[in-house]
């Protein structure tokens, strides 16, 4: 059957079929995406840098290889974007912060190398909260990205540019980064699929660090099937990232079609209580009912430490960030203020280069790690983290997956939550809980509110069981 969708609206799977049958060329597809970016960017502002020249050169190279009959990579000719926290040689990487304005990456991140080897086509670098510090992309030092589904609303964060770009067709998928919900939140707010993989499943080499023990690299895509295709390329051991795992990468496509009959879904009671918007709950409960129709059993479970997980996260993550961001000294790269002494250079470069959110998190982390407070904050939070992980692992022995809303609210209006930074942090209550535990989480669009705003549901599985998440997510998408 001929596909009548506009080229930029294709899924990766659909586009690959058309490219492989030579119905379209990689350059045609890339031009369609670049034209779409040109049309949408003045309003949406998802990109910090559009790499049109690189994209055209890569697309032409794919077409030339195809004509010559050379072996092509698994994503040959597929246009995609990368969050601006990744190093791609010769292209600016700002991490969404003014402190890195003008920084040109001298090397490639491993995830980019892998996608290049798969013959994918880079169309640009997307906007985000600085270093991943945010839930709405409103903290970006560059621009406020709008949600393409409703331009009065935020696209989520921190990878809001990535979510918005995929939602409007500025690339068929995006590589984003999740330290405390930064893939899952924008994917949910933009009606997409997004995977936070198990810690260590994808190499972090060349990703600008936020909190190194939480940072994960993953895809945002239109469908779960696309996310699985991308994970197949980017997952695996990398000598350049000692925390990347040599645990075998399964064939994700093979897991998709497995029937769910007899599987068990756990609903943590703590995730369905106070603070959850009624419409979000309604859509999620309809999704649960659909899983029951597919033969799943639903079991109520408890994750008693949920209440403290977010506090533990906001001790440990800023602590790691305060250490990671010490490198922005105004000396080796990025924003530099000329001054008389090295210390003045550093104080002033950081004072003017970092925005309010970077300063807040660095100072919270500095406080939590400082002499006299370390036991009370950092060490205590690490103990809570150990118990939180035990909580999840215990629950996951009783059920195949845990299901929850991804976000407690619908995508909110731009400017609505910027006055109180702590309230904005608390919006991450269902997503940040996974990062301290290392567990994988997949967000899938569960449905829409009455105003047609998307509601994401989060599925959680044991470590390195991404294939279970893809199975559940795919079956849901096929049966709605």
């Amino acid at each position: 059957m001929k596909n009548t969708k506009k080229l930029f609206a294709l899924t990766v799977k659909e586009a690959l079929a058309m490219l492989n049958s030579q119905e379209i060329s990689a350059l045609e597809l890339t031009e369609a995406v670049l034209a779409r970016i040109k049309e949408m960017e003045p309003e949406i502002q998802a990109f910090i840098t559009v790499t049109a020249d690189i994209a055209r050169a890569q697309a032409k190279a794919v077409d030339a290889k195809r004509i010559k009959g050379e072996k092509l990579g698994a994503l040959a000719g597929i246009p995609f974007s990368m969050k601006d926290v990744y190093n791609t040689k010769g292209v600016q990487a700002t991490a969404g912060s003014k402190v890195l304005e003008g920084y040109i990456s001298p090397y490639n991140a491993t995830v980019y190398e892998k996608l290049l080897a798969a013959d994918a086509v880079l169309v640009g670098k997307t906007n985000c909260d600085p270093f991943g510090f945010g839930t709405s992309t409103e903290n970006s030092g560059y621009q406020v990205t709008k949600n393409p589904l409703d331009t009065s609303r935020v696209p989520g964060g921190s990878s809001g540019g990535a979510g918005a770009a995929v939602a409007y067709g500025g690339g068929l998928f995006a590589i984003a980064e999740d330290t405390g919900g930064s893939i899952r939140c924008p994917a949910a707010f933009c009606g997409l699929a997004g995977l936070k993989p198990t810690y260590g499943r994808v190499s972090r080499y060349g990703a600008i660090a936020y909190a190194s023990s939480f940072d994960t690299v993953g895809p945002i895509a239109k469908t779960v099937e696309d996310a699985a295709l991308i994970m197949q390329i980017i997952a695996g051991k990398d000598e350049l990232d000692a925390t990347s795992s040599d645990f075998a990468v399964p064939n994700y496509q093979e897991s998709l079609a497995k029937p769910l009959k007899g599987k068990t879904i756990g609903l943590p009671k703590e995730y369905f209580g106070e603070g959850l918007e009624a419409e979000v709950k309604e859509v999620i409960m309809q999704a649960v009912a659909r899983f029951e129709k597919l033969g799943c059993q639903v079991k109520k479970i408890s994750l008693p430490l949920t209440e403290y997980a977010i506090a533990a996260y906001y001790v440990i993550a800023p602590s790691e960030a305060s250490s990671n961001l010490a490198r922005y000294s105004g000396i080796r790269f990025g924003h530099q203020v000329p001054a008389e002494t090295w210390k003045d250079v550093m104080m002033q470069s950081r004072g003017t280069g970092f925005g309010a959110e970077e300063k807040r998190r660095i100072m919270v982390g500095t406080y939590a790690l400082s002499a006299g407070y370390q036991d009370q904050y950092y060490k205590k939070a690490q103990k809570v983290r150990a118990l939180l992980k035990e909580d999840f692992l215990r629950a996951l022995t009783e059920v195949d997956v845990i299901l929850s809303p991804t976000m407690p609210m619908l995508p909110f209006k731009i400017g609505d939550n910027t006055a109180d930074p702590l309230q904005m942090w608390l919006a991450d209550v269902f997503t940040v809980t996974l990062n301290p535990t290392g567990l994988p989480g997949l967000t899938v669009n569960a449905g829409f509110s009455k105003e047609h705003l998307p509601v994401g549901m989060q599925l959680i599985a044991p470590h390195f069981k991404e294939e279970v998440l893809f199975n559940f997510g795919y079956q849901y998408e096929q049966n709605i």
Partner: protein
Amino acid sequence: MSQPKLTTAEIEKLAELAKIQLTAGEKEKFATQLTAILEYVATVNSVETGAAVFKSQVDTKNVFKDDVPGVSLSQTDAVSQTKNKNGYILINRVINEKH
């Protein structure tokens, strides 16, 4: 636990440790915001943690690799993002500073 509001001196101390120059307005704003944040995150202290020890996210053991030199950045690339001369980074004089 109620957190007393951070004083200007405490914020200045933190900013000094973090090597961030703050404006007067920022000091006031952050004193209020950080007080609220610290009060919230201190709730971790109400969890009975006993002898819990966090080891790692995915229980990785020691990770080794062969000690073989690989490709690394060239000197030119390594200094390309800042003021440089003859392959070296140019910085302010450190010795003979006033303090």
